[in-house]
């Protein structure tokens, strides 16, 4: 019973202190909401599912053969494409067109080359897609290229049939038709996972950043208690460390959940009013609650860990903020991982924020349920538990007689 009263007191003082600091509370909740609004609208076209009309395509011909010029001609006749040809043909040009697609300057880059480097071998058409394009737009691009190749194949077939006098003689009907080109879709193109909309990327991303940003006020509140001498008074009272920690964890957990709810509500209902896409949150509310709670625990665990290591408010604000921004930058929060180079994408998985974002997007984008988020949820929970454990040990040691 005594512990219950003590816990109630710890919760009361933290809640009251937070409520009285209205400015800080507003910043905590409003910051991600404002970011989501700005970033979702600003990046809407980059993530848009709308098919840009016409789609810009750059073509690099490294064969100088008939196939490539006919292929380019067919593509140019397509009204939904605006095809430009790269004048240079070397390896540098190939890197340049690939970068043009990767960075979104064009929707697709197409490189026509030879399969085995000989003039007689069939052409190889390599398609690079802008990774930020929605999957269906990328599929459309691939389909148009396939159509163009098929079109050329049909022309060739008809031409051969004519040459064979439709007689079925040598080289006629019985001759197997080898396609004039083989399509290679570059990695990250058609076979990539479905991509999120702008708000599906930005809403969970900025909410996660704000959750982890809580490390700063959480550390500052503990440092203030040290500086004000309150912690000394509490150490002299018969109150265990876990009560004091719970008194901090629970209110901040609630704030994070409110913050996330505000962001999701904004994405769902406010953003469409401003011309943005409505946030599609999938069909698994249970999974959403689980991944949100796991991310919240990870964020608060990290916050408490920082709080028990830093000694001044300056350390808390600088180290807390910078470390969270680094985690955000690595984890695909500030820059979506899909536009990162492959090396950076591999690196992104070390950030707890990337686990959280992946969990949210599993529900929002891939339409998965609880099973789909389990790996990310467990990672977040283990990270949070380790942080909380270390923080609790350090805090307990601080409260114990030295």
């Amino acid at each position, binding site marked *: 019973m005594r512990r219950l*009263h003590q816990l109630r007191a710890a919760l009361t003082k933290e809640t009251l*202190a937070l409520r009285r600091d209205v400015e800080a509370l507003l910043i905590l909740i409003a910051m991600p909401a404002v970011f989501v609004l700005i970033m979702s609208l600003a990046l809407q076209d980059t993530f848009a599912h709308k098919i840009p009309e016409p789609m810009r395509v750059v073509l690099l011909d490294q064969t100088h053969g008939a196939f490539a010029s006919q292929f380019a001609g067919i593509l140019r006749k397509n009204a939904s494409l605006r095809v430009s040809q790269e004048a240079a043909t070397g390896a540098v040009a190939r890197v340049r067109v690939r970068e043009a697609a990767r960075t979104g300057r064009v929707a697709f880059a197409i490189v026509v080359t030879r399969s085995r480097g000989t003039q007689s071998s069939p052409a190889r058409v390599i398609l690079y897609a802008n990774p930020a394009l929605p999957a269906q737009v990328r599929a459309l691009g691939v389909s148009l290229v396939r159509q163009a190749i098929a079109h050329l194949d049909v022309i060739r077939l008809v031409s051969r049939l004519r040459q064979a006098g439709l007689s079925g003689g040598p080289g006629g009907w019985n001759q197997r038709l080898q396609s004039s080109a083989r399509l290679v879709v570059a990695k990250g193109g058609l076979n990539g996972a479905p991509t999120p909309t702008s708000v599906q990327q930005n809403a969970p991303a900025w909410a996660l950043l704000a959750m982890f940003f809580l490390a700063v006020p959480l550390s500052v509140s503990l440092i203030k208690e040290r500086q004000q001498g309150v912690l000394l008074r509490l150490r*002299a009272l018969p109150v265990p460390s876990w009560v004091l920690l719970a008194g901090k964890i629970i209110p901040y957990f609630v704030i994070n959940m409110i913050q996330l709810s505000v962001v999701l509500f904004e994405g769902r209902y406010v953003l469409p009013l401003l011309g943005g896409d409505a946030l599609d949150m999938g069909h698994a509310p249970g999974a959403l609650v689980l991944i949100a709670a796991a991310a919240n625990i990870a964020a608060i665990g990290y916050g408490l860990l920082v709080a028990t290591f830093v000694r001044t408010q300056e350390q808390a604000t600088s180290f807390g903020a910078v470390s969270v921004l680094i985690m955000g930058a690595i984890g695909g929060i500030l820059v979506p991982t899909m536009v990162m180079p492959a090396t950076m994408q591999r690196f992104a998985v070390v950030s707890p924020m990337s686990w959280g974002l992946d969990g949210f997007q599993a529900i929002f984008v891939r339409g998965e349920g609880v099973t789909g988020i389990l790996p990310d949820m467990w990672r977040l929970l283990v990270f949070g538990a380790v942080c909380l454990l270390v923080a609790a040990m350090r805090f307990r040691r601080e409260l114990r007689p030295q």
Partner: protein
Amino acid sequence: MTADLGLTSPHDGPARVLAASECAIDIDDVVARYPRMDHPSIDHVTLKVRTGALLGLLGPNGAGKTTLLSLLCALMRPQSGAIRVQGMRFDDHPEAYKDLIGLVPQALALYPRLTGTENLAVFGQMSGLSGRQLRARMDFAIDFAGLNEMAQRRVETYSGGLRRRLNLATALLPDPPVLVLDEPTVGIDPQSRHAIHENLRQLSVEGKTIIYTSHYLDEIEQLCDDIAILDRGRLIAQGSLGALLARFTGNRIDLRLEPQDAHRAAGVLSGEPGVQSVTAAGSLVTLATDDPHRRLPAVLAALEAAQLRPVGLSVGPRDLEQAFLSLTGTELRDEP
């Protein structure tokens, strides 16, 4: 180190050993050392405080006052020795031990954004109070601190004096038999200080054992029955104020010289007729004589002959400050 005055009653009676039931605090040969420190912060201190005493703990900077209070409040562990409060050791009953002591920290250990009432409620519940008992103790604390209508306002709007009174009242919430106050009147006006003194006297009369540290020797002199003086982690004196003053006042000549001359002067003067004892501490040389006014010319002549020139001189009975100076060889000054 045991107090050199031994243990006395608060009324200058002969020293006597306290019965266990009379002893609220028993600090027995305690040694404490901070990590990476060569010297112990508390060096074999033995101190017994009778139930209901109002003990003033004095000492210059770094003497170990706050360390001793931390040891008493179980914020720090002694390396050796034992501390008992009402016969109880922290290690035997940690929670019950903490219930016995109310700490008034030097810092204003309050939540500034919470009101006075909210602070009292939070710390009352943290102390284990609830329901009617909590409300009754909060009413007492509000009355004790003189909060009245200010109780519903945030602490950050309080004057320094009111904050100090609330700081003290908060420690009284669980009604602990022992109250430990670390510089409780720092930075407040004389009226508020007077009000706190009155409150403490009342608590002492009601039977609370109070340990009070301060840099204001005059307030210790006015307030405390017993005094303990710490210097470099050692307890160099303990006793009633009367006994302490009696020992260090009387027919004395205090000479202040350049610090490098003090010991030579003590040597020169130790053979002078009528001088019973000579002590040198820092720049101060103290002579106990049968008749200070009659002996003073000869003393000054002896110094002149030895080419020693005093820069300060006082003759006659002294107050606690002079006794403190004489004992520690240093002045009491504010903590850095």
